[in-house]
């Protein structure tokens, strides 16, 4: 399946669990607030994000899943993240490839990678594709069979195994 951002947003809107986050995302796009990143930065980021998580195996790429919008939203909410992201973008420019970035500045690259992963795996639509049910604590939890004691029957037959003192 070829994933596009439009398809992703349509699919997201279908899930009741996703409504609040999706609504926010759509608002972000429609209201088109001034971008925190200039066109060059967005372009460099887009390339890097989609190299870190490309599309494939039935999964969208990082930017198809709304990665840049997520990142900009968090940058707006958390000044420390905005500052870190700008530093990472500056570092990104220094290197010819992501492989070189990782080899020469491993901690900074790991921060970028982890942030791309965050932008991706906090998306309920990605959860759905992975088969993950979040079970937020204000909804019902999963069903699990009760503990079956027979699995301990061999251990139960063993002798006492602690020292008296």
């Amino acid at each position, binding site marked *: 399946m070829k994933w596009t951002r439009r398809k992703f947003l349509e699919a997201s809107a279908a899930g009741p669990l996703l409504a609040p986050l999706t609504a926010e995302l759509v608002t972000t796009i429609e209201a088109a607030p001034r971008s925190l990143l200039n066109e060059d930065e967005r372009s460099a980021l887009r390339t890097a994000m989609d190299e870190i998580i490309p599309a*494939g195996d039935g999964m969208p790429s990082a930017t198809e899943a709304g990665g840049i919008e997520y990142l900009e939203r968090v940058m707006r909410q958390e000044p420390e*993240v905005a500052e870190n992201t700008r530093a990472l973008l500056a570092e990104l420019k220094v290197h010819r490839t992501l492989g070189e970035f990782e080899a020469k500045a491993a901690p900074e690259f790991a921060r970028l990678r*982890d942030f791309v992963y965050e932008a*991706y795996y906090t998306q309920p639509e990605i959860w759905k594709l992975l088969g993950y*049910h979040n079970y937020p604590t*204000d909804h019902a939890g999963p069903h699990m069979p009760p503990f079956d004691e027979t699995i301990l029957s061999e251990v139960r037959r063993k002798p006492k*195994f602690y020292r008296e003192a």
Partner: protein
Amino acid sequence: MATESADVLVIGSGAAGAALTKRLTDLGAKVMCLEQGGWIKPSDYPSSRPDWEVQLHRGAFNFSPNVRKRWEDYPVKETGTHPPAVLMFNAVGGSTHHWATHFPRFHPSDFRVRTLDGVAEDWPIRYQDLERYYDLNDREMGVAGLAGDPANPPRAKRPTPPLPIGKLGETIGRGFNKLGWYWWVSDNAIISSDYRNRPACELHGKCMFGCPIGAKASTDVTYWRNAIRGGAVVKPWSRVREITVDKTGRARGVIYYDRQGTLHEQLARVVVVSCNGIGTPRLLLNSKSSLFPNGLANTSGLVGKHFMLHPFRFLEGVFKEPLDGHEGPFAIPAMSQQFYETDVSRGFARGYTFLLERSFGPLHHAWGSFSNNPVPWGPDHHRVMRQRFPHLIRVTVMGEDLPEESNRVEIDPDLKDSSGIPAPRVVYGYGENSLKMLEHGGRMARQALEAAGAIEILDSGVIQPAFHLLGTARMGRDPKKSVVDARHRTHDVKNLYIVDGSSFVTSAAVNPTSTIGALALRAADGIWESRREL
């Protein structure tokens, strides 16, 4: 301005302060507790939000005070040959908002390590002294589990039945059975059926990010509810600067800041410090006077010394079949104490517990989960992610840390909290015994995962120490070698008690909270019995 005197003034409202307050209130004492944090509203917990896992990296509910930086937090400088990542939480209920709820007990041998194994020091109390308080604490907190583990002394029927262990628990349990090793379903302070006006666990699995329904035993929903009903008073947003003494050397009370920065004095007949293994020595060392120029209760020079953290190593087995480790209570499904008691042929003293554990959600898996092996970026990303999620079982090696005087908490000369109170610095390094233990534990954990059918094993190696703040005002008979006596009363100040992880003489190889609670209940009885002489 000084306010009316309390019978007992408790500083800190976590696992220890809550248990002690409730017990003394039941006995008839007028107890007040000062807590530097506030009440946490269930709706504030991130566990109901889609970005709950982000809190592992940043946010107001991160486990580290250095990351959270809330008003009520104080910074901790982390230094030494293995600088620890210090974890704690400041609120009514303390770190029990965050904890995983594992509720094992010490073994009888843990109180006799010098006599039995020639290391560290014996405790001045025995398992038998604490047993009835363990039972009482189990009932007050609400525990799920199963009696009958042959690797532990017998105990009463657990207040609620065991929590489900799921496919993950069954798979690793079969691995242990195949090896013929001891293991058992764990005691956890989460209720599996409705209990004392609290609802049963609904298995959401985000326990460490707050349980809004109250099935997990954070002390705000266990001890505090009932203590307050009984007349105890807890004052949130009250940050104690120092404990004051009168001219005879008795504790007079404390001076504390409120949220607006106003100073108050609170008087009391008895003062109890329950601020955890870092906060307690910090407060004592900050409480200097002409009578106690080196800090309060510090004639021995041992306040802040013998800081212990449990050595940990995480091994994660990747299995072919999905194991849904993110579902079900994050509490520990099962544990093995096959290597708990000392066997000198292994090359180290004391031993360790295997915790058989679950996972967080997809984001934490991608970041590397507990073994710190990030899913690779690039073309292979989705394939490896699907291989690991949800296919992991974690076997955690949790060893006993031996107390070493060079591992310590002290006051940093520069660092201060937001009220200007000097903040602590910790200095820590793993001892050789701990490193040998983790090496052995790693090999044995690998065997267990292979026996259970793991197709790949991810190993954290020796991790940055982080968990359980213990030993910095230890208990003992000799005032030269300890800070408090067997009843938690300081050797130096007759009406000052220290009741929390600080008073541990040794760490054992189990999570400490059930022992902290049991010690606090026992200390409360001691204070009550001594009330006429205090």
